[in-house]
């Protein structure tokens, strides 16, 4: 009924328009469609060009190192002794992102559950907004805050006690707690990906029909039991998708991590202890770019690192989108976050 009302209003507007202007030629219609098609195709072209440029740009390093670019740990840019292996940074990326996920995923699911199941309706929107604002803060500001403020707290309140307690005997707490290390970088990274995972999981949990919850309540379930029985199984694949999407963000995050991870290179960057300076694929690119920008094998090695990161992020995101798209038809939340 309203639709017809609106279309009446619109049609009267259209009548005026048709009187005011010519109906346009059929060619313009075609041209318009072609322009729109071209704009959409631009996305595919860009992705193809990214692949081509990364492959050609890194060709020299693949030719010289072969497979050992993936498996080697040497990183030497001194002329005549040049040798590049990305293995420590691949490991660093996985470990750093992994620790961040361990912290962020439970917290995010908790936030998602609070917002979808427990929060009073009046609080839901403002709280969701505050969580989303966390995603709006630029990476470099996280880095600055981490470097100048947060690092000292981590060093004094977490790392030093843990180090004193377990000492150098334990592997993962070995090394001097200096605050610029894998642990600090991972925690900041966790804070940065919480909004992504939390807001998507909220949407996914809200998409569970209420009749499911009511069925559980009817059986005498508490809020938590209804969540476990009705909401969780229903939203499982979507939550996995949200997690993987968060992983995609964690893997590619650059600035904040660069400023906090301590920047080791070569075999020293293979992560063993939480208190050890590390390096990820993204951070080595940001760190060494200035020295390598003149070209040569060093630059090719960094572009090669970019290619590895690209493939990693691409695979992660494709999987995530396939999983999330199944549950939430439009994941507007993902774009806004």
């Amino acid at each position: 009924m309203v639709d017809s009302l609106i279309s009446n209003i619109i049609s009267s507007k259209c009548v005026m328009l048709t009187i005011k202007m010519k109906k346009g030629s059929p060619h313009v219609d075609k041209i318009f469609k072609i322009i729109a098609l071209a704009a959409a195709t631009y996305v595919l072209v860009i992705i193809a060009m990214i692949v081509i440029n990364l492959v050609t740009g890194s060709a020299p390093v693949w030719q010289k190192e072969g497979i050992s670019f993936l498996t080697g740990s040497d990183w030497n840019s001194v002329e005549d002794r040049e040798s590049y292996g990305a293995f420590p940074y691949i490991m660093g990326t996985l470990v750093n992102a992994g620790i961040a996920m361990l912290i962020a995923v439970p917290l995010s699911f908790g936030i998602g559950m609070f917002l979808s199941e427990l929060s009073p309706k009046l609080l839901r929107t403002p709280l969701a907004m505050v969580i989303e604002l966390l995603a709006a803060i630029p990476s470099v500001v996280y880095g600055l805050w981490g470097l100048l403020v947060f690092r000292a707290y981590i060093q004094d309140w977490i790392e030093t006690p843990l180090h004193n307690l377990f000492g150098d005997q334990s592997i993962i707490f070995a090394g001097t707690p200096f605050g610029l290390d894998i642990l600090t970088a991972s925690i900041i990274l966790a804070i940065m990906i919480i909004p992504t995972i939390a807001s998507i999981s909220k949407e996914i949990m809200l998409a569970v029909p209420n009749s499911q919850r009511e069925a559980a309540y009817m059986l005498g379930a508490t809020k938590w039991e209804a969540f476990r029985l009705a909401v969780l199984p229903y939203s499982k694949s979507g939550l996995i998708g949200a997690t993987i999407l968060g992983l995609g963000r964690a893997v590619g995050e650059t600035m904040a991590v660069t400023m906090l991870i301590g920047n080791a290179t070569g075999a020293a960057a293979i992560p063993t202890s939480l208190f050890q300076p590390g390096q990820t694929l993204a951070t080595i690119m940001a760190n060494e770019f200035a020295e390598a920008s003149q070209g040569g094998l060093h630059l090719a090695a960094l572009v090669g690192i970019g290619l590895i990161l690209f493939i990693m992020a691409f695979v992660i995101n494709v999987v995530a989108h396939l999983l999330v798209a199944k549950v939430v038809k439009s994941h507007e939340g993902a774009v806004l976050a």
Partner: protein
Amino acid sequence: MITPEQRAEFRKHFRYNVGRRLVLDKIVKGVVFSCVIVAIVPLVAILVNVFSNGAAALTWNFLTEIPGAVGSDDPGGIGPAIQGTMVLIGMSSLIGVPVGVMGGIFLSEYGNNRYGRTVRFFNDVLAEFPTIVIGVFAFVLIVLTVGNFSVWAGSFALSIVMLPIIMRTTEESLKLVPVTYREAGHALGIRRYRVIFTIVLSSAKNGLVTGILLAVARIAGETAPLVFTILGSSQFISDLNGPIDALPLRIWRLSSLPYDSAVTQGWGAAFILIIMVLSINIGVRYIFLRNKEKTFLKFKKMGVAS
């Protein structure tokens, strides 16, 4: 069938551990609520630190002058960085907005087919790409080819960051425009492109602007793609083919300097950046919510919404 005797027998097996279950329920609620608090604490801490430390740096000279020599008594200002960020936003939008909006139009109006779904899918994937990879790409494609760092390269990289955001939000807001609007136009024999431009786009105006603003807020804070493309500079911009400065890049450089004045300036620059980014984000959300309320009230008056 279950006889009453059987039923009595079954009930004996029920353990009405309600007390324990309710305690567990309370614990879970408490844990979940503290998750929200844990997430909000860093946000508050960052805002408080940036505002209190950054306010100290804010002077007219800080906003307008060029940076002083490193380590000298006169720290100068971040004028070129502010100018550079503005220029970069403007130039990236010149590419990103028209291409993004047209692409969004394609997805919404002509994209209900296999090709549309393919583009939509890769667009979503591109939106999540590590931006540093986009920076490396722009470096290889433009900087290496042309031979120097430039505003062009930086704008190109940032336009790729904003493109998928605009495309997606445009598509979503166009899809919200009821089909009847389009049908009304077509019924009068108006050409499709005119219907899209005059009726569909104007109805979806708010959503479109929201998407563009969010994309601008996003690229204003992007650092990684700029490291590879604009290099940074301590002079105001004179040539689009030359390097320039940008706020996030300046913050990064300042944070690594061992001088107190540099640290203060870093906070100051972060203050400016965060004000820019957050005001866009909060403003957009406020307007968005208010408009939603308005439409809701309008519909309520018409008697559709309950």
